[in-house]
């Protein structure tokens, strides 16, 4: 295939994907506005098809991609259309910047926050030694026991018999545990240091 044909082929594929995406968007808008899945004839109207067969083919494609599903009676229900949070661009608090709505590959909050599901644990924070790192008393942190602790990570550690959550700082043979709050002192392990896991995320629910 020469370069020009490759270019046209790539353009065609991209156009196809765009079209599919806009169709999914049309169906999901209907779903959110009306609170139900559109019927086949309604879908035909939304995407500009004239034959029910074309709608049928589209639905099959979307079913395969788990965008839509069918309930026990065979009726259409929302699949991933209902569930994920669409990825927006970064929004800086206080600066109303234009957020681009991109229907990116659907990543759930679970996927975002948990990398190694089998090794991730919950922990409720009670102290304020890491408050300047944004971890406040009452917060939930996710602790990964499978991660190898590196210098700069926030770790849950047992130092000389006491449990604490601090920054890990390794400088060669020297190991220190640093707080994120001027009220607290850095800790230098005297006898033993056991790291129970690495803090990978903090979760705070307001409502």
């Amino acid at each position, binding site marked *: 295939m020469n370069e020009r044909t490759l270019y046209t082929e790539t353009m065609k594929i991209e156009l196809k994907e765009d079209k599919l995406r806009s169709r999914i968007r049309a169906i999901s808008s209907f779903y959110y506005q009306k609170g139900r899945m559109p019927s086949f004839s309604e879908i035909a109207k939304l995407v500009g098809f004239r034959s029910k067969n074309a709608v049928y083919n589209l639905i099959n494609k979307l079913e395969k991609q788990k965008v839509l599903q069918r309930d026990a009676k065979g009726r259409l229900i929302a699949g991933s259309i209902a569930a994920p949070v669409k990825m927006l661009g970064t929004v800086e608090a206080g600066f109303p910047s234009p957020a681009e709505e991109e229907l990116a590959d659907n990543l759930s909050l679970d996927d975002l926050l948990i990398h190694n599901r*089998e090794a991730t*644990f*919950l922990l409720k924070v009670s102290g304020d*030694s890491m408050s300047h790192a944004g971890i406040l008393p009452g917060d939930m942190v996710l602790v990964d026991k*499978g991660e190898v602790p590196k210098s700069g990570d926030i770790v849950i550690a047992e130092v000389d018999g006491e449990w604490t959550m601090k920054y890990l700082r390794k400088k060669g043979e020297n190991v220190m545990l640093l707080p994120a709050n001027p009220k607290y002192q850095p800790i230098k392990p005297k006898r033993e240091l056991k790291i129970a896991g690495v803090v990978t995320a903090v979760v705070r629910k307001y409502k």
Partner: protein
Amino acid sequence: MDNQPLTIHSWPRAILHLDADAFFASCEQAVHPELIGKPVITGKERGIVAAASYEAKAKGVKRGMRLFEVKQVCPDAVILPSDYETYSLFSLRMFEILRRFSPDVEEYSIDEAFVDLTGLRRSYHGPYGMIAKKMQDTVETELGLTVSVGLSISKVLAKIGSKHNKPHGLTIIPGRDIHMYLKDLLLEKVWGIGSNTIAFLNKFGITTALEFARKEEGFIKKYLSKPYQEVWHELNGRSFYPVTTESKSSYQSISKAKTFTPPSNDKSFIFAQLSKNLENACIKARRYKLGATRLIIFLRTQEFRNTGIEMKLNRPSAYPANLFGPLRDGFDRVYQANSFYRQTGIVLSGLDSETKVQYTLFDDPARIEKMAKIYNAVDELSEKFGKYAVHHASSLPTKIQSQHEGERGNVPVRVNDLFKGENKRQRLGLPLLHIKV
């Protein structure tokens, strides 16, 4: 003669058996690190030892021991209520970790797995023992508890291996070494050999696994039934039992039984307990799309005497509304006013696919459809708001009166230690570390 190997094949298959050490107690120590190194017992709500940590075992605590006995042999034992929610999470995680290494993982019990490693030496560029060690290390690091592993060429031998060195053991038994491990192993310790057969074999002077394995095939075939012939093959390194990966797709019977304390003779409370068991059994049946054609109810008195009754149903059903009639009838027949009861139980059996239903002349199809709709709605609500969000009024007394009054009525810590958004029925599916930071 005794030093001759049983087989010349070192690794015709590679089967691993993984057994978590003192599982329930170890889970508690994993989420309560301050209990590491201490004697920990679970099973407070039952009044007996369900699991004991190795520190407690060292003091002489045994499974099934009554709690007051524990306080005598091990006064500083930490006794905790069972936290099945947490144990289940750990168990599922253990199996998922094993699945990273091989797709052939059999969930043998809540804390035991068989894994088929045959053929994986090439992928891992190393011997089976190395793979086994990696699996053990990963499970121990990511879960925070210890497991014992046996690696051999059949399931029976793999299980012998895992038991050989506990806790945190790794025992590898290649074909040429089998005889060394069976030499001093009593028949009692072999998986699959029951006490009657042991007594029978003893009469022939067979007391160890090696003596049993070395017996000629003619003898085995003549005197023992098929299951024992299979065990004999397995002990000789000829793998007969494959590692089965299928999860339970169907059930022969579903039973739900629950003990309550103190024992009661309050008829409506006892019926409520029975009703709740029935609802829970039906929830499970509906999950697997099954309906019961036989209903068994039983009551256990505080003297541990059981009375029960079995009822046949004319059509498979998993809808409590249909089954309350027979339940009432059966209960009235079995309940005795002057007895104090401690446990009620339900067994749904004769399970059949609920979609295969053929309506009889006496059925009311409209009513049956209506029932289906109602319970579909109940199941959907349960999915959204937690199990038992909607239930029958007859079970209400179980919510008003606690299942275990007094000291035994200790709920696991996790149930009350909630995050914003969690409630008594719905919680995040991740274990909570009870560390104060």
